[in-house]
């Protein structure tokens, strides 16, 4: 009995000392503005679903030599990352000090209060906003209007095309001339018919109609769920009909985005256009279209160009915030602030990776120097800089990813001729009931 008592006492003492420690740190950290970067010392843990952050840590440590960053990558294949975050935070055990969230679920994180609000003292993240692409911090505002996360990147969308096909079909591969056809949905369809005719069905405008989904999902003003009611935007219906027409007229190749056949179509030259955003260029198109050149084994062919898509859009993106249960919020914020706003770092990062950054000063600074060999020397930064300003994602909600997937499922069934238009719409409503049982659906 004595032993048990002793054990309990030891546990209690160590517990209270840990608690006291935590409180002391919180008290210490009230005035960070006067502290030099080297004054911050300690260790933080960062979780993310890609290895991008790993490449940023050396830059961070140049400025903050005394903050040790332990970085853990948990890929989100099969929702593993998402579930790891959920179970860790639900258990209340703490977990990482900093973690990232992707466009598909960051709104859920914000709604659940996973990320510490950063607008007020001691963080004062509002000071950073004037130099950032507005939607990047803007779309992380919680119900109280507080910024909860930052990001190093903005993800406006573009359209990439094969110059050789453009030349044969339009007689020119000039981005401005091609954009005349790609920037308007009706003209875009016409272009598809021209490609079909030119190659008698051997080559296609798009790898799959689903590639259009992202800009179509951005063509709305209202959230899908407002006042507990489902809004189906007109764009949804147009998309369904257009997709069917494209399939029936052999304008798209019939692959689905992210399927093996979709990736392989990038290399085999059978498809003219891919509708992809900033990251799609570096992480999807380049490594799949010209894998050898991307590994530095030979030069890029320069057979690709960037044109204006039928509508402006933003696709994906990664945000980074502080775990609201972290005990090292002072250190954690230094990391988030650095990654999300430090001009020096973002400039180096943009030049090294070509990724499109979220700091407008850096964008203006690096834009003149960019020339992408994969795009035949085109300056994608200049285009993305203009597009980023147009992005408005104020209509985004926590369930968009699920709702858009449910619509996509029905579009597939309609396009494949399994269902009629009305059946597909009715079954979409049923599918939404499965996701949000309490939402009213007309």
């Amino acid at each position, binding site marked *: 009995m004595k032993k*048990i008592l002793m054990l309990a006492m030891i546990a209690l003492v160590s517990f209270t000392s840990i608690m006291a420690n935590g409180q002391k740190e919180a008290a210490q950290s009230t005035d960070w503005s006067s502290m030099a970067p080297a004054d911050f010392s300690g260790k933080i843990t960062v979780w993310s679903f890609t290895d991008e952050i790993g490449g940023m840590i050396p830059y961070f440590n140049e400025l903050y030599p005394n903050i040790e960053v332990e970085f853990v990558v948990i890929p989100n294949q099969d929702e593993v990352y*998402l579930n790891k975050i*959920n179970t860790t935070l*639900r258990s209340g055990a703490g977990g990482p000090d900093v973690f990232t969230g992707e466009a598909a679920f960051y709104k859920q994180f914000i709604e659940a209060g996973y990320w510490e609000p950063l607008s007020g003292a001691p963080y004062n993240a509002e000071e950073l906003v004037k130099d950032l692409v507005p939607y990047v911090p803007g779309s992380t505002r919680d119900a109280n209007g507080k910024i909860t996360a930052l990001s190093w990147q903005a993800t406006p969308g573009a359209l990439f095309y094969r110059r050789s096909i453009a030349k044969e079909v339009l007689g020119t591969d000039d981005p401005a001339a091609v954009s005349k056809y790609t920037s308007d949905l009706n003209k875009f369809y016409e272009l598809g018919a021209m490609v079909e005719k030119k190659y008698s069905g051997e080559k296609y405008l798009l790898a799959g109609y689903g590639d259009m989904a992202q800009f179509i999902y951005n063509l709305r003003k209202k959230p899908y769920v407002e006042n507990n009611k489902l809004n189906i935007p007109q764009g949804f219906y147009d998309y369904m009909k257009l997709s069917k027409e494209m399939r029936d007229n052999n304008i798209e190749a019939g692959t689905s985005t992210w*399927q*093996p056949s979709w990736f392989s179509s990038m290399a085999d030259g059978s498809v003219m256009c891919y509708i992809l955003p900033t990251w799609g260029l570096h992480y999807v198109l380049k490594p799949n279209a010209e894998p050898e050149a991307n590994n530095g084994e030979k030069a890029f062919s320069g057979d690709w160009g960037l044109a204006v898509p039928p509508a402006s859009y933003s696709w994906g993106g990664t945000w980074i915030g502080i775990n609201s249960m972290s005990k090292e919020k002072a250190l954690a914020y230094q990391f988030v602030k650095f990654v999300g706003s430090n001009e020096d770092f973002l400039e180096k990062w943009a030049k090294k990776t070509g990724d499109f950054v979220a700091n407008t000063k850096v964008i203006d600074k690096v834009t003149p120097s960019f020339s992408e060999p994969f795009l035949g020397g085109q300056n994608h930064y200049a285009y993305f800089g203009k597009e980023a300003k147009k992005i408005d994602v104020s209509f985004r909600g926590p369930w968009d990813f699920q709702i858009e997937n449910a619509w996509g499922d029905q579009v597939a069934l309609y396009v494949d001729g399994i269902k009629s238009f009305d059946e597909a719409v009715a079954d979409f409503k*049923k599918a939404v009931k499965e*996701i949000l049982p309490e939402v009213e659906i007309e």
Partner: protein
Amino acid sequence: MFNNFFKKRDNKGYLFILPYFLAMLTFQVYPIIYTFFLSLQKPINMIKSEFVGFANYQRVLTNELFYTSIGNTFFIWLMNYIPQIIFALLLGVILTNKSIKGREALRTAYFLPNLVTASSIGVLFAVLLDWRFGTLNHALVNFGIVQEPIKWLSQGLFAQGAVSFIQWWQWFGYTMIIMMAGLNAISSELYEAAHIDGASRTQAFFRITLPLLKPTILYVMVTSLIGGLQIFDIPRVLTNGRGAPDNSLLTMVLYLYNQAFKNFNLGYAAALAYVLFILILIFSALLFKAFDEKK
């Protein structure tokens, strides 16, 4: 306190079973109880939930899609179980015949598919069956068997058939080995006696082999049913993971998984898990009873 308890020689045995019980309590009993507790809750957001009583169970039992998922699961299971048991039995009988050469090699070959992870098989078949770029359609079109590529995975029935086929291909070798074990346990004296009495091979099969193999068949049936009701991986990877086309691959466990980890409704998923548990319990009990009475 514990020291005295374990000093008694009679009580030392508890120490030996303690590790297993600790593991079982932590990893089996506790989750079972916690799942029930979860099933009485409804999420407010990803972290917060509220108590709703048995509302989740009510939603499960009045939901059309839940019954669809039961139907899908049973259909996929039956379509694979029937050919599987027939193949396994026939091959088992043939391969226990000592006069057949190379039966060890054949046995291994039939068992091999079982060693491949289900998800890689799913991905492999997804590539084979892709409608415009898939191997199957390319072959069919090139041989002139069909004019236009067929959208295999857009047809619910075909997609279910493909899952059943994969399950069959993956599992008949395993079932065959179990059958062979059962067959080897049947005493050869019985066959000799039957042979002397003038029984034909067919008669011996139906009068001796089948009746004596009943416990083995029962074992295979129960394990296959329990496994079959939990089928998840191949329907998950063969199409988009949401049960496409048109919920035809939405099995009970896939439905549960998607509700818990894609729609973040742990309460509803926990209720589904309990209903699934009770269903499996009932079916196992019924099967045992049916085979018992015939004895």
